[in-house]
């Protein structure tokens, strides 16, 4: 106050000190509450191993039992063989070909890793998985479920990236949004 009066007839400068105090207190407070990363969630229902849980899930047989097995060799895409692959084995690389059938254990993965043994989560071939699932979706456009069967050693990150790949195709846009593939994920117990 004394400083202000010293200026006498001149227009008083606004006393900003209380405002400064306020702002200085506000900043740490907001800084604490600020979220610099934004979060999202991926929904998934109970895995098949959770047996005695009261969920009204009828064991009705879906027409396409699409499942993606994740191993340290790559992805194996399987489905109800008779439905998926009526006219014999799929043709390698041909776009309308259906993916491999369920009993392909000795054949190795449908989509092998980009690098031998899949040392990092990025060495899985997600692009090819998206392409393949796009082909399946073309044929079974009503189907929305996919079962993921990861091996025990598979890192969680690979699981999330696989869920991203099975959910939507970022390269194909439908009405301004990525084309939905199989958004409903069920995570199964998985192979040891």
């Amino acid at each position, binding site marked *: 106050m004394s400083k202000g009066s010293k200026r006498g007839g001149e227009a008083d400068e606004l006393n900003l000190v209380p405002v400064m105090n306020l702002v200085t207190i506000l900043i740490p407070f907001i800084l604490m509450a600020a979220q610099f990363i934004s*979060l*999202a969630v991926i929904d998934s229902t109970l895995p098949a191993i959770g047996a005695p849980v009261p969920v009204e899930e009828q064991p009705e047989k879906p027409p396409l039992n699409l499942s993606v097995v994740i191993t340290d060799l790559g992805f194996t895409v399987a489905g109800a063989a008779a439905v998926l692959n009526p006219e014999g084995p799929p043709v390698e690389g041909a776009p309308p070909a259906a993916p491999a059938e369920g009993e392909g254990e000795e054949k190795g993965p449908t989509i092998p890793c980009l690098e031998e043994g899949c040392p990092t989560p990025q060495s899985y071939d997600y692009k090819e998985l998206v392409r393949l699932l796009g082909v399946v979706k073309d044929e079974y456009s009503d189907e929305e479920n996919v079962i993921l069967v990861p091996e025990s050693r598979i890192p969680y990150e690979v699981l999330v990236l696989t*869920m991203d790949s099975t*959910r939507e195709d970022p390269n194909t846009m439908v009405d301004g949004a990525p084309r939905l593939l199989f958004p409903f994920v069920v995570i199964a117990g998985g192979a040891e």
Partner: protein
Amino acid sequence: MGKKKPRRNSGEGALSITSMMDMMTIILVFLLKNFSSQDISVKSSADLQLPLSSALKAPKTAVNVVVSRVDVIVDGVKVMDLESTTDEVTGQATVVVPEGELKGQLITTLYEKLLDKAEQAKDIGARAGGGEFDFKGQILMQCDKRLPFSVIRQVMYTAGQAQFSEFRFVVIKTRE
């Protein structure tokens, strides 16, 4: 100008706060823009790195299970420790649930805790008269991206046994 100078020299010099105010105002606006009232909060640490994902669905409040590389936390309360070990086949460092905690696939301590939570949630649902507060068995899972699926599976199985059947995996958004 000519009038001011001698006065400054004679008296105590006043600090010019205006420029500092400008700065503060800009910071304030920036922080307010970042301010979000998300339902859940994440305490990121070296042992809890959430995976990145293209998912867009906004998170909602539910029972919060954090599985980091060292421990399991339910709604902010630490439930148990995890054990670091080396994988027999690959020889790489990995994380397992301690043998003593396991009963088959079930993690006993976590099961009891989650069962408590389920009972509480049901109680609240009953008192509130159903509707929005009804127990739906939703559970938020915050898991470290390097955890092996075996640990995730055991946690999911345990949650499933404790009547939590809708899993929501919390991830970091990579797009808007």
